[in-house]
């Protein structure tokens, strides 16, 4: 059973198409993210689902029934806004009770449900607080409680963590996922932060210029990106442009514009690019092994480059080195926490190597 289904959804603003022919289904109880750069149409898509914009074409179905004709207040889709939109003139309890009052439930019933939901989001005894007295994370939870108390079919969240500071964001990521787990409600989550999308979601749709580029589990997106855009947007990558030199059964040979020859595999599911075709090549820093020159550790790897360390960006487990390779390009590679390369310093010579399976080549428009 699908909780939410969009069919060929399109939205045009006079002349400009913000959402193009988007179709997807969200299974009941799952955490679905829409990930894309700023301005790609995420919010527009979500506002159509909530009923604040009318689609130019296509259909939106909730639990199987089209909701196009319903005004926003009659759709059982609730929304957590980017800046939360808590009502400043009401206290926490009144905020949470607002939707129930609109449904004209009896007072006692409202009080009971408000208390229950605040308990569930970990804010018992907060009903009397004014909204201004809450911390960022608490506000977040009130905004979610305000929607969840109405038991929506689908909860939409539009970059709800965007306004929080870094540490809190990290914490709320985990907390949001646990809350969804606990409520078992379908979440549709919008973000431009790939780490948020990957961490929390069952399924992620990567959106670009109004279109869905790929829909899949976080691992699929990370390990098998379907397009150059997805490969570049999800996770960190080194990216080069080049041309196919040779194509064989064991993969492609690509010469980058800087003149380096790399061995990789075609990606994105298209045809095998013919020699001479332009390709975009992606290699993840984490996939690159480092070794001191003369060390034979990298010998079995098909791609090997020599260079000097330009900069060491120490950041604990996420440390990176920037290596300037022979022909002037900068390659970013993960710095291992242990092993011979761990203590490398600026200006030292170094060798890099990686397997051809980690060299993803996407055909580009000529």
């Amino acid at each position, binding site marked *: 059973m699908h909780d939410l289904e969009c069919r060929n959804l399109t939205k045009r603003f006079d002349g400009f198409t913000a959402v193009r022919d988007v179709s997807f289904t969200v299974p009941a109880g799952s955490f679905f993210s829409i990930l894309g750069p700023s301005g790609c149409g995420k919010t527009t898509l979500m506002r159509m689902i*909530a*009923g*604040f914009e009318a689609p130019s074409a296509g259909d939106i179905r909730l639990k199987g029934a089209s909701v196009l004709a319903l*005004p*926003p*207040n*009659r759709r059982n*889709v*609730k*929304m957590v*806004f*980017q*800046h939360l*939109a808590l*009502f*400043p*003139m*009401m206290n926490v309890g009144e905020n949470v009770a*607002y*939707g129930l*009052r*609109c*449904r004209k439930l009896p007072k006692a019933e409202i009080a009971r449900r408000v208390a229950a939901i605040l308990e569930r989001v970990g804010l018992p005894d907060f009903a009397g607080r004014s909204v201004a007295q809450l911390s960022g994370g608490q506000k977040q939870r009130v905004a979610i409680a*305000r*929607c969840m108390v*109405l038991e929506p079919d689908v909860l939409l969240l539009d970059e709800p963590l965007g306004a929080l500071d870094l540490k809190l964001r990290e914490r709320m990521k985990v907390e949001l996922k646990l809350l969804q787990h606990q409520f078992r409600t379908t979440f549709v989550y919008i973000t431009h932060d790939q780490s948020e999308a990957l961490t929390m979601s069952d399924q992620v749709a990567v959106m670009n210029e109004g279109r869905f580029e790929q829909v899949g589990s976080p691992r699929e997106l990370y390990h098998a990106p379907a397009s150059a855009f997805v490969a570049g947007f999800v996770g960190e990558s080194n990216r080069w442009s080049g041309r196919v030199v040779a194509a064989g059964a064991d993969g492609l040979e690509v010469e980058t514009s800087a003149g380096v020859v790399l061995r990789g595999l075609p990606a994105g599911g298209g045809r095998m690019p013919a020699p001479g075709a332009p390709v975009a090549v992606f290699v993840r820093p984490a996939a690159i092994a480092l070794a001191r020159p003369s060390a034979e550790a990298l010998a079995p790897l098909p791609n090997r480059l020599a260079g000097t360390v330009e900069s060491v960006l120490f950041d604990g487990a996420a440390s990176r080195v920037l290596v300037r390779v022979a022909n002037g390009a900068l390659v970013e590679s993960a710095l291992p926490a242990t092993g011979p390369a761990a203590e490398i310093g600026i200006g030292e010579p170094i060798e890099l190597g990686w397997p051809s399976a980690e060299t993803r080549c996407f055909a580009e428009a000529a």
Partner: protein
Amino acid sequence: MTGAAPRDARRLTLILLFMPFALWMLLLILLPHLGVAFLSLREKTGPRQYGFGFGNYWKFFSEPIYWTLLLRTAATSLLVTALTLVAAFPVAWYIAKIAAGRSKAALFLLCLLPLWVSDLVRAFGWVVLLRETGLLSRALQGLGLVSGPVEFLYNDAAVVLGLVYTVILFMVVPLVSTLDGMDDSLIEAARNLGGTRLTVFRRVVLPYAMPGVVSGSILVFMLTAGSYLTPALLGGKNAMWFTEAIYQQFVTRYNWEMGSTFGILLLAFTSGIVWLALRLTGQTLAGTMGRA
């Protein structure tokens, strides 16, 4: 900041900045009002002979003409305030929430322009429009809606209309500025959570706009109660405005004592109403007017 010298410099700056404010308040506001209060307690006992007491106040309260006039003025002002609020809200809403981009700026500008034109010109415009030989009467005759000339001037309705006209922009401006500060997502959230348009207006929009409503209303009420020209030019034979009574006491009766008493009473009465309104809506003067 650093050391002792800058702190002294800061003190000196404070004192220098305080001087104009102190002079302004003392010489132009406090002392004059004290002077009026003092004068209102002075009673004329004969030519060039005066005594002190509450005689003028006593005379005011014992003479129903005067206090009914004050009540009438206040009541009409409240009516004008209410009408203005109702008339201005949709306009402010449109400007703040519906119009976008250039049309928004242009609309706001258009709305502000009449604000700058003299009261006198505006009242005069109404006279030209509404008098028996004026445009409206003639237009109605032209359309065949009435047979003879109709007088729209010199009645309470004309005064209320003229007053609403003179003060409405003082309501629009604070309303626009509060409504403009309201995040649209508040309204959308309220709709999303199941509120009908009416519920959203009553439970979210209105409470949010309250500071603007209150500051606009105070301004409008005080301006109305204190206006002189519009009631004088548009008003009918029955309708005197309390300010006219004050003016009369000063100018045609040469009775400054009574005029001062009237002034103090007008001030006290209208301030009382404003205070009550602030209490009832839980706002403060500094909080509302400061942002207007």
